[in-house]
């Protein structure tokens, strides 16, 4: 009885939340139209209403390199926290191909696509294939009807600020197939988004062979077809700092997501008639960001994020819940994040810059077990001072720590010690930029020597037979290149 009551109360709360989200979103839209219709809205925007020729554009992000461990094998990273310093990372490539489809008085319309390739490169493994994904394929229309409104439709990401040193977006990093409506102004940004995803995972998608209706044999039908609905909204308010400054400013941002997964029927293995019910599920995210930038130097910034997530939304729209409550829902899972990151260039010439990133996170899964090894309080911090010598030689050092305290004891040895990893690295690098060099100047070619110190609890996270579990001190020697240029599309 209590379970049923809890279920309905939870549903009711979800619906109320959803209702308010819609109300908020609608409010944003109405405001957007009001702002957009205001003659001052775009006073300082150079709306190009003249007809321009359509053109293609190309952009890319990539990181590639090679490495060695002391035994001559490929070097590897150690990680005990959900997000960790990115210094030692996989190869990855994104190729953007876009087209300015329309430039006119009604809008600026772009078609944007991004092809991604994951880690498997032919000259390393000799395999004439690759793991590729189409990450972005959407149309984006800005300045619709001459206003500050924009819309996009298709497969895309919507991202805010990240912690570069961890390759981590602490607040907003949404990847869906959906529709976004927004307003982009000098001081205000907001958007609302509705998207869906249906992962090729047994909990959402299941094709089952059934007797063919008209022919011999079987035909495959989509039996489980559970889309996750994701509603998201963002509001950002920006302020200039000082009347003289053109670049310095600060902002605050509110962000929310609501995830809903309908109930479905999973067909049991070896059958096309026997099914079990998968209950509906839901999740939400609410968070805030405070940011300041441009003080003393264009590349300087500091961001503070706080984010609360619940249920399905904790696990990212591309992930599935790791642990369920007895009713097979994830709703009772909770996560808190608090993150701080920034960059500070010591002098205007950028002789020395200091990048850092840190976060702390508490995660509690949905199962009924209160003292659970899967539940974690964890944090990670990384700092990277970088020199700028001769305008292209940018040697750096990096120190980082990962700390993860499971809320239950280790399943085998019952240890309650926190897993800890400390890593120190020396990174001689060459950075190139047409503008003044700073910590984010790319392309960059870097050599990396890193030493990682792992305590017993960190080693115990690996399978016993895993070679990585054998050494409390781990060395890495690598060479990597990273670039980005010409990225198309907003957000």
């Amino acid at each position: 009885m209590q379970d049923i009551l809890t279920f309905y109360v939870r549903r009711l709360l979800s619906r109320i939340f959803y209702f308010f989200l819609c109300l908020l979103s609608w409010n944003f839209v109405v405001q957007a139209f009001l702002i957009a219709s205001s003659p001052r809205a775009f006073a300082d925007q150079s709306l190009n209403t003249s007809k321009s020729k359509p053109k293609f554009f190309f952009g890319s992000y990539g990181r590639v390199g090679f490495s060695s461990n002391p035994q001559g094998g490929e070097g590897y990273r150690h990680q005990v926290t959900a997000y960790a310093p990115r210094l030692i990372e996989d190869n990855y490539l994104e190729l953007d191909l876009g087209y300015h489809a329309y430039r006119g008085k009604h809008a600026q319309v772009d078609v944007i696509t991004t092809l991604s390739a994951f880690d498997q490169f032919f000259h390393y493994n000799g395999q004439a294939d690759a793991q590729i994904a189409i990450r972005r394929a959407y149309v984006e229309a800005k300045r619709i009807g001459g206003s500050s409104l924009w819309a996009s439709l298709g497969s895309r990401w919507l991202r805010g600020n990240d912690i570069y040193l961890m390759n981590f977006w602490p607040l907003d990093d949404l990847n869906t197939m959906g529709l976004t409506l927004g307003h982009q102004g000098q001081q205000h940004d907001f958007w609302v988004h509705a998207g869906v995803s249906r992962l090729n995972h047994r909990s959402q998608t299941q094709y089952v062979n059934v007797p063919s209706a008209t022919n011999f044999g079987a035909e495959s039908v989509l039996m489980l077809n559970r889309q996750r609905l994701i509603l998201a909204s963002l509001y950002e308010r920006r302020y200039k700092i000082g009347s003289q400054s053109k670049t310095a400013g600060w902002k605050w941002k509110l962000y929310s997501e609501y995830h809903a997964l309908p109930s479905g029927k999973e067909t049991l293995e070896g059958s096309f008639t026997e099914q079990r019910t998968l209950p509906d599920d839901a999740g939400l995210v609410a968070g805030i960001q405070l940011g300041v930038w441009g003080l003393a130097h264009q590349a300087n910034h500091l961001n503070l994020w706080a984010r609360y997530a619940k249920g399905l939304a904790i696990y990212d729209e591309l992930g599935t819940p790791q642990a369920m409550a007895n009713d097979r829902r994830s709703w009772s899972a909770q996560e808190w994040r608090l993150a701080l990151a920034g960059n500070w260039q010591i002098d205007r010439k950028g002789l020395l810059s200091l990048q850092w990133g840190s976060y702390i996170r508490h995660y509690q899964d949905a199962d009924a077990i209160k003292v659970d090894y899967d539940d974690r309080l964890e944090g990670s911090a990384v700092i990277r001072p970088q020199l700028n010598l001769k305008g292209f030689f940018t040697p750096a050092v990096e120190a980082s720590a990962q700390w993860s305290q499971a809320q239950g004891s280790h399943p085998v040895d019952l240890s309650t010690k926190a897993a800890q990893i400390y890593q120190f690295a020396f990174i001689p690098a060459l950075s190139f930029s047409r503008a003044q060099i700073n910590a984010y100047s790319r392309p960059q070619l870097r050599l990396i020597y890193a030493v990682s110190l792992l305590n017993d609890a960190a080693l115990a996270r690996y399978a016993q037979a895993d070679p990585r579990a054998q050494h409390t001190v781990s060395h890495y020697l690598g060479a990597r290149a990273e670039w980005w240029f010409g990225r198309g599309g907003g957000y």
Partner: protein
Amino acid sequence: MFVQSSMRFLLCSLSMLLLLQCSPPSQVNMSFNRRTFVKDWRDEVIYQIVVDRFADGDPNNNFNVDLRKEAAYHGGDWQGIIDKLGYLDDLGVTALWISPVVRNVEEDAGFASYHGYWTQSFIDTNLHFGDLAALQRMVDACHQRGIKVILDVVTNHIGQLFYYDINRNGQPDIVFFGGGGPGSGSQNSDQASDLRRASEWDPEYDSRGVQAFTALGENGLAPVEWVEMPEINRTPPEPVGFQNPNWYNRKGRVTVWENEAQASFEYRREQEIKGDFPGGLKDLATHRSDVRQALTEVFAYWIQEAGFDGFRIDTLKHQEAGFFDVFSSNIRKFAHDMGKNNFLMFGEAFDGNDELLGSYTHGEGVDSVFYFSAYYRVFMNVFAQGGPTTGIKALFEERRAKLSEPSIVSETVDRVCKLACAKASESDPRCATGFNACVETLTNEGLERYSMGTKYLGPTNAEGLPLSPSQLLINFLDNHDVPRFLYSATPALNADESNQAHEQKIAIGHQRLRSALAYLLTIDGIPCIYYGTEQNFSGGPDPSNREDMWRSGFSQQGETYLYMKQLIKLRKELPALRRGTVNFVWTSDEQAHRQSSVAHPPVQGAGLLAFERSTAEQTVLVVINSNDPDLTASEQAPRLDVSVNNEGQGMKVSFPPNTKLKDLLDPSSTQEFTVNASGELIVSLPPRSARVLVLAE
């Protein structure tokens, strides 16, 4: 160091902002769980749980679960037990016997290891049920409620982790040689050879050890090849010491049961002790001292880490009695040193032979055994099949006679007194006046109490005096290895019968179950209830007798549930039912009446059983009517509802004349029963019912 400290300070400071704690997680207080929870094992009511089938408290460990297959994992776990402790508490059981906890080979030939008897690692938990912390939490939660936990352990064998490379080709095969011999279909009868076939996983018994053979003939002992299939956890055993091939008897599977009558006793015992258990479960060489030591250490580990209160030991019959002398005494000492006195070890020897069962309790062997003799002769023969109740009395008398044989008595008394006097510093009262006085006293007093030897540091009563195996026999109606009692006791259903007829038969089965329960929970020994009995589960032989408990809804309103609950309550309230002597006051040589038997008219007094349980302070009279209702008799002639014989005589009881008795099993009844001037009691007793009579206030 500075960096580490700074980082920790930073992280903890941030966490404080979130009002979260940096301290390590709370752990189960093992010093609490490592103490003694049992005063006298006869006070306990054991409830047997097949963990996979009892309650699913954590769906996240439901790996490879398939509820449609009886032989697959179904999802039960230790968290499920924690969740249902309220139910068990309400029922009144005081000890849980849980299925094995160790990591198993996942599956074999389409059967899963949900039962837990296919050990791969002796020192890791089976993650289908939870991790070590979950096990600790479960035991702790039980102890917090005063419920003890008994672990099922397998010392005889491991899972199917190696194969015998009979043809020496380095891979497991079904090996065939020969054409089948003349006349067996070979095309060339002149050169036809005998067909030889062997499964390298599970070859048949060979006294010499499993032999390799090729087309050229035998080729020495077949090499033992460990398998590495981590996807089903079929990997070499752990700890690594168990990877020594010499730690296994390597003689192949027991086959003697197929022609048991033709085999000598010695050869049968040799096969049973040294052969692999059916299913390719590789037999440990438990005659070796290093194997004994290793087994002691791995199972001591579970007492240490989880705080168990006793062991149920699997397949006693397949190991040398000498093994248990070493294993049991070492475990007893380990438990004692850790703070657990009264650690109980009882074993399963699937045999109705009292002497064989008793042999495992000799010396420092196990403390007790599953009383299969009573299973066959009492529960199956009398309560399920309606056999004469004198069979029960005979079982007791035979056992007493055996235990009273002068040689056994003198050996036992001698041993007990040596032990008692050796512990002079502990001022054992039996040795207060010296060894000779002790011998004389024990020889003259109730010998059964000391028969078959007590154990050094073994189970004791509440006063700290040792209890003998015959006082600690584990009685059961059924368990996971035999069909449910209801399966055996319910008249067979016929597909041609009406639903009404089916329901009537099922109702009869339920009544028979309840009268058997009345016996189980009022007789001496330790009652053991198989999960689901209280919910009228009726599955046949394995695996059908391992039903999902959750399908019952854990109802606490069923008739059998309430009946069992009341009996357990009485057993707790009446010390005589737990510790009293047994004196049969009524049995019958006649078969009980069976409703389905037209050819067997009811006989007055048949199917009735009455016995007194007495302590110095209290006598309880238990009367059970094992007859089915006589549906053919007229209402005016209910001949089966009084306990008198054909001459109209009632039963002689030890209560004085004119004593008034009342029935505690039916608390709503105000009826009183008076002992007549001749010391006889005539009790009205409906078929398939029982009364627990005590002095009326």
